[in-house]
């Protein structure tokens, strides 16, 4: 009951807005916001009535062929309930914030309609009880992301960005689908999460395959992972996320920071039994996550657009979570953790804390951009601390949480859990890069705060900035509270956030975590205090390691050039061999065919008709006699 409300309400909201936005006008905004509020209440109710028995319930039929079913059925367990709370809570706050942020936008109904579509699709991913349903909604969040990034489609940059996001995700989904097909084949046509997990844990058919064909399990795991690489913007498919900042800022907060991009991590945790079954897959996943985290952190240190800094930070933190998925699986393979689905997964816990403070930071940057009349360059801001005190304080809290201010903020606990997982994985490169990433995170975030909020206003727009309206401040304050408190047991337990099993942390981990925080913070203060332009300039980082340029070349050569060649060959060879050559031969055969070439189509059509009748005559009246 709750699940169907949570899933279908935003769908109908989107549908009503699509069909009736001209008649509804302002009401469409209320429908969308209202549905998000009701969804949130239903999600809280879902937390309250929760029992601990995990089971899959059929919600709606979809495909049903003989033995095979792929339906819309929901798996409600601790993971999905906790994730649903994050999605609906931040979703609701972003809806409310958007009431202020999008006040002057003429296309508000379209914006809120797409937002409802997003809530629907994201809910589907979270509740999905089988991989096909997950894939369905996986693609649909891609659509809503496309629509929202392209909200200001008149701008060429936004139009290109939404296309890029969709296509990059499609490449990931290509792998995801292959992975689903492999599992579908291996598990005899059943891709429900429960059955797959049972098949692994209790020694079903998949378990046999696991021992006889480990390569196939690794292939399936890596193909499924490819879906997460696209959606969670991991290297090498990370390029779409920074460009996605072309969308309105509330969208960046909800979709491209807190929820949708984290769906990849959520999905990986959902199928963690699969990753644990394959040592190679676990190592690759940890490696890709670790590389993404470090690479994006380096890029973030040299960005000047406030949203881009946050975007690279999101990339980096997603890399962190993905690394944790791999590291936990590696640790499990070494016997460091219980086999099977670990309820307190560090990746999920970081996803949970990160969702609040990163959404907060994005909404805070939205408030700054709004106040500075759509100025996004941090070097054109400055001194905002005095003009926008509430925004400043909330932004600072979010920043400290992201940096992991020891013992106070939620980010400290979740980051420490991930560092611990990296430590337990037994791979020292993982641990060291993770610690270095944490240091860089403190550095670039402190840099951002100093440049934008401290010092003197560097431009007129920064000088005249004033605090944003209450409707926008309210979500900031709420999220700031969560940024600090969400890791506390009093919050985390009822929200079913599933803290990783509490062990006394290794001294090394604790030391690394605190040292990274301190070095990064004071390094940034030392370098950037009172500066009006960047004292360091590293082109490689500022230009994002030239990935966009490289990919542009790849697309040009391997797609456009290839398409050109294939088209030319197709014209010459296929048309030449299949059409021209026989025609030429026929044309030489005699005068009768010359009539055909004369271009009297009606004549030919009659000829064709006549021929058909002749053949039919032959078949009907002549052939039977031959038979006797």
């Amino acid at each position, binding site marked *: 009951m709750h699940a169907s409300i949570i899933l279908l309400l935003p769908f109908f909201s989107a549908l009503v807005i*699509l069909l009736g936005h001209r008649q509804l006008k302002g009401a469409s905004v209320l429908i969308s916001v209202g549905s998000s509020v009701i969804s949130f209440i239903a999600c809280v109710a879902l937390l309250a009535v929760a029992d601990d028995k995990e089971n899959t319930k059929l919600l709606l*039929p*979809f*495909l*049903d*062929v003989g033995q*095979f079913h*792929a339906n819309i059925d929901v798996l409600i367990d601790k993971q999905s309930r906790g994730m649903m709370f994050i999605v609906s809570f931040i979703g609701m706050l972003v809806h409310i914030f958007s009431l202020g942020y999008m006040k002057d936008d003429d296309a508000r109904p379209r914006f809120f309609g797409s937002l409802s579509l997003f809530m629907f699709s994201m809910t589907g991913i979270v509740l999905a009880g089988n991989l096909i349903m997950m*894939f*369905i*909604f996986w*693609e*649909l969040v891609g*659509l809503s992301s496309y629509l929202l990034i392209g909200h200001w*489609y*008149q701008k060429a940059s936004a139009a*290109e960005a939404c*296309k890029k996001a969709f*296509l990059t995700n*499609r490449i990931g*989904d*290509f792998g995801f*689908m*292959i992975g689903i*097909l*492999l599992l579908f*084949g291996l598990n*005899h*046509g059943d891709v429900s999460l429960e059955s797959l997990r049972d098949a692994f844990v209790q020694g079903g058919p998949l378990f*046999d*395959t696991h021992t*006889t*064909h480990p390569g*196939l399990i690794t292939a399936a795991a890596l193909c499924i992972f490819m879906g997460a690489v696209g959606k969670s913007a991991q290297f090498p498919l990370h390029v779409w996320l920074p460009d996605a900042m072309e969308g309105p800022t509330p969208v960046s907060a909800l979709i491209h920071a807190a929820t949708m991009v984290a769906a990849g991590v959520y999905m990986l945790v959902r199928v963690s039994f699969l990753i644990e079954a394959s040592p190679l897959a676990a190592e690759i996943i940890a490696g890709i996550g670790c590389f993404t985290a470090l690479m994006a952190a380096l890029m973030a240190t040299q960005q000047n657009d406030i949203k881009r800094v946050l975007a690279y930070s999101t990339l980096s933190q997603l890399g962190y979570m993905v690394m944790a998925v791999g590291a936990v699986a590696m640790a499990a393979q070494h016997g460091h953790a219980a086999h099977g689905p670990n309820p307190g997964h560090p990746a999920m816990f970081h996803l949970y804390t990160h969702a609040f403070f990163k959404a907060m930071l994005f909404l805070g940057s939205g408030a700054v951009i709004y106040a500075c009349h759509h100025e996004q360059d941090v070097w054109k801001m400055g001194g905002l601390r005095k003009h926008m005190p509430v925004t400043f304080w909330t932004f600072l809290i979010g920043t400290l949480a992201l940096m992991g201010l020891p013992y106070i903020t939620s980010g400290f606990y979740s980051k420490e859990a991930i560092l611990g997982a990296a430590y337990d994985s037994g791979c020292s490169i993982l641990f060291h890069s993770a610690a270095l990433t944490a240091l860089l995170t403190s550095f670039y975030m402190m840099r951002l705060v100093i440049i934008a909020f401290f010092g003197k206003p560097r431009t007129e727009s920064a000088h005249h900035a004033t605090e944003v309206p209450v409707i926008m401040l309210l979500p900031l304050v709420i999220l700031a509270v969560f940024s600090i408190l969400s890791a506390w047991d009093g919050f985390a337990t009822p929200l079913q956030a599933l803290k990783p099993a509490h062990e006394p942390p290794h001294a090394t981990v604790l030391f690394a975590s605190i040292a990274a925080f301190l070095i990064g913070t004071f390094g940034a203060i030392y370098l950037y205090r009172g500066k009006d332009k960047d004292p360091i300039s590293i082109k490689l980082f500022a230009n994002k390691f030239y990935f966009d340029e490289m990919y542009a070349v790849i697309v040009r050569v391997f*797609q*456009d050039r*290839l*398409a050109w060649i*294939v*088209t030319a060959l*197709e*014209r010459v060879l*296929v048309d030449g*061999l*299949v*059409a021209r050559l026989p*025609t030429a031969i026929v044309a030489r055969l005699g005068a009768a065919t010359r009539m055909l070439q004369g*271009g009297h*189509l*009606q004549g030919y*059509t009659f000829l*064709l008709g006549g021929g*058909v009748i002749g*053949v*039919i005559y032959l*078949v*009907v009246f002549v*052939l*039977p006699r031959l*038979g006797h």
Partner: protein
Amino acid sequence: MSVLELIIALPLLAALAVWLGAPARAASLGATFINLALVLYMAVQYWGKTGLAFTYSRPILENPSLSFAVGADGISIILALLTALVMLAAIWQIEDRPPIFYVSSLLIGGGAMGAFLTTDVFFIYAFHELALIPTFLMIALHGRAEPAQRKAVAWKATIYLGAGSLVLLAGLVWLVLEFSGGSKLTFDLEALRSQARLTPLPDAKQAQIFFVLLLGFGSLVSLFPFHSWAAPAYATAPTPVAMLHSGVLKKFGLYGLIRIALPLLPHGAHVEWVQNALLVMLLGNILVMGLVTIHASRLDDTLANSSVMHMGYIFLGIAAGTDIALKGAVILMFAHGISIALLFGLCGRMRNQLGTLEYNKLGGLANHAPSFTVLFAFGAFASIGLPGLTNFAGEVMIFLGNFTEFKAGVLTNLQWTVILALWGVVMSAVYMLRAYRSIFHGTPATGLFMIDPAFSQRLPFILLAATLLVTGCCPWLLLNLMKSAL
């Protein structure tokens, strides 16, 4: 008399009436509306049932036994529904055109109905030919190009489809003769089916006949490399003809393979050399034509080539031959028909209003024509295979249907083909989103102006888009018509 005879006769009689001078639009629309209602009635009657229904037979000849026999099962009903919907939309969207547009649309639609709803091989074939002739004539007489060029295009299509039809005829005759074995000759599909069950042909012979039928039916469906008629024909054809041929009539070849070739030659498609040949050809459709479509620089070119490309997926379902894959193929036939008709219809409107379909001359149409943009998006995202629109359901069933028989450690040729074909899904997104971006996004190009058509003019397209959404969210609606295993 069966309701099916009425459904077949109605468009043909309406065509005759219009030709004799009845008010063209009123008569055509009236007939197609009633036709859609009848088909829906038939679908509701058949709901959840299995086997052949609404059968009725009028004997014509004793020996060879030939009769005008009608009958419908789930596949026929789904394709009849497709025909009725596309015919209605295609005729509805005609504006200010001479009566021949209505006559030819009715003839193509009626011919397709006849091909899908008769159960005698002779009439299945004859009705298809009946529908082809107005297609050629309309391209030659009213095509969107200089007279010389449009005649050349019509020629090419005529030669290809004519040759394909002859090969097909030869294959069908061969098939019928093999089964008759010197005794009584019959064209009745049910009789042939029961004969195929009792005394199946040897596998080698099945393979040979199947291959001939594949070439014949295949050229009608633009199977690679017999496809090069399709793109210029669709780009040149008048809008209703492009909608009806690409949406409905082209499905005839696939219908024939599923309805005639597979049941009568159940092993033919799985003999190794036939299967490998089919897989190579369908990969040609998907990968080669995918790249060709990416290269296209005009909307009509993109749509025409994409329509060739997507046939590859349906052939993939036929190649797999499993119950899930074949049902997926039928759903994809329906889905592709609706979505490509929608896109060609909108494309025709754009050409009328803007005078150009070149991507580098277009841009920003979403600013002034939002509803038109949304309708186009339905078609574009459907053909990309977005879940929630019908094409996805068909595609995913075809993919899954290839993986039902899975031996761990060994991927079959079919399964490798699926993996390669999946890359085509990425390519579809590339060309469709490029098209969408250059037509609708950005700022309006100078000198180009287009506003939303009036609501009444949008209705035929809304009908198609709504069909995609409803059957896309609830593909079981279609599956419930196909309860019997294929």
